[in-house]
């Protein structure tokens, strides 16, 4: 299993724990890809634990302005990184959309060679694939937007409110899904042809594979055995 930094955060106490949680939330809202975040936070946690062990005040590590620290810590990870991260999180939906579009294309070709379809360019199947693709793109956009809002607001509100912000992000995504499901028939009236759905879902699939390439490699490197994990839990 993954030797994630999250397994060790319980070792932090007091101001170290509070500061680390704020930074963790900021980096999460910054929408940096998981494997990069894992590396950054693991490094930082090690520094925090070392400082805690030696009794060094946490402000020696972060300074007085933790928001400024977070911005400096995440420098170099801009919009491109946020987009790659969003793609990583919606990859299951993208792969599903591409799979259904391939089935759709097969059905289209069977119908075409069967003589029931005249024009491949205007053919549209019964499946609401264009709606799914639109939902995926909307989800990526919302993910980036809500992350931006969380980052701006989180240092100006209390602990409970900060926990609530992440719930709000999830609620927005869920609401979007419900709206799309409820209105999918109406939206599907756009009648996008099958070949466009195939190209869009295919393009998104390629982007997702590219975005997740490093994730698979890093995840394979950073593993601990289940036995080691149990041993660690036992000595908490």
């Amino acid at each position, binding site marked *: 299993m993954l*030797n994630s*930094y999250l*397994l*060790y955060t319980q*070792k932090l106490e007091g101001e170290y724990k509070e500061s680390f949680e704020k930074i963790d939330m900021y980096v999460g809202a910054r929408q940096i890809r998981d494997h990069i975040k894992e*590396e*950054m936070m*693991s*490094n*930082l*946690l*090690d*520094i925090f*634990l*070392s*400082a805690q*062990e030696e009794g060094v005040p946490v402000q*020696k*590590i*972060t*300074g007085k302005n933790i928001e*400024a*620290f*977070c*911005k*400096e*810590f995440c*420098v*170099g990870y801009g919009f491109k990184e946020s987009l790659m991260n969003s793609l990583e999180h919606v990859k299951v939906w993208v792969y599903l959309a591409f799979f259904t579009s391939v089935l759709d294309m097969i059905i289209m070709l069977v119908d075409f060679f069967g003589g029931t379809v005249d024009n491949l360019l205007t053919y549209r199947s019964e499946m609401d694939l264009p709606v799914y693709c639109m939902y995926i793109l909307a989800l990526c956009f919302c993910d980036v937007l809500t992350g931006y809002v969380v980052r701006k607001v989180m240092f100006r509100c209390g602990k409970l409110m900060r926990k609530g912000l992440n719930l709000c992000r999830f609620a927005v995504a869920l609401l979007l899904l419900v709206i799309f499901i409820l209105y999918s028939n109406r939206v599907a009236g756009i009648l996008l042809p099958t070949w466009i759905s195939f190209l869009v879902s295919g393009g998104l699939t390629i982007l997702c594979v590219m975005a997740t390439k490093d994730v698979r490699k890093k995840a394979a*490197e*950073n593993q601990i055995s289940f036995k080691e994990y149990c041993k*660690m839990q036992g000595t908490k």
Partner: protein
Amino acid sequence: MDESQLLRGVLEGCILGIIFKGETYGYEILGKLEAAGFVNLLEGTLYPVLMRLEKKKLISYRKEKSPYGPIRKYYSVTAEGEQYYKAFEESYRRITEAAEKILEEE
């Protein structure tokens, strides 16, 4: 006076210099910088510098589980990093000698 401009100019070279002296990791680098007199240097500033050095292939790293559990990166200088550091040392000495001459004259 805002020291950040001066700091940015030398920080990369100094961090490379610390790593050049022996394999080391983040907290140790911070400690050595502070001991040398780089006060108020934050880990938030250290991390982007280390990233830049990695991207330029001046340093490499190996990962190992730290005594506290999380994965720790141990940095060491590459062959290009060694050359870059020696060039930095020479440039820095030349510039500080010239600056000292001017400041002493005042």
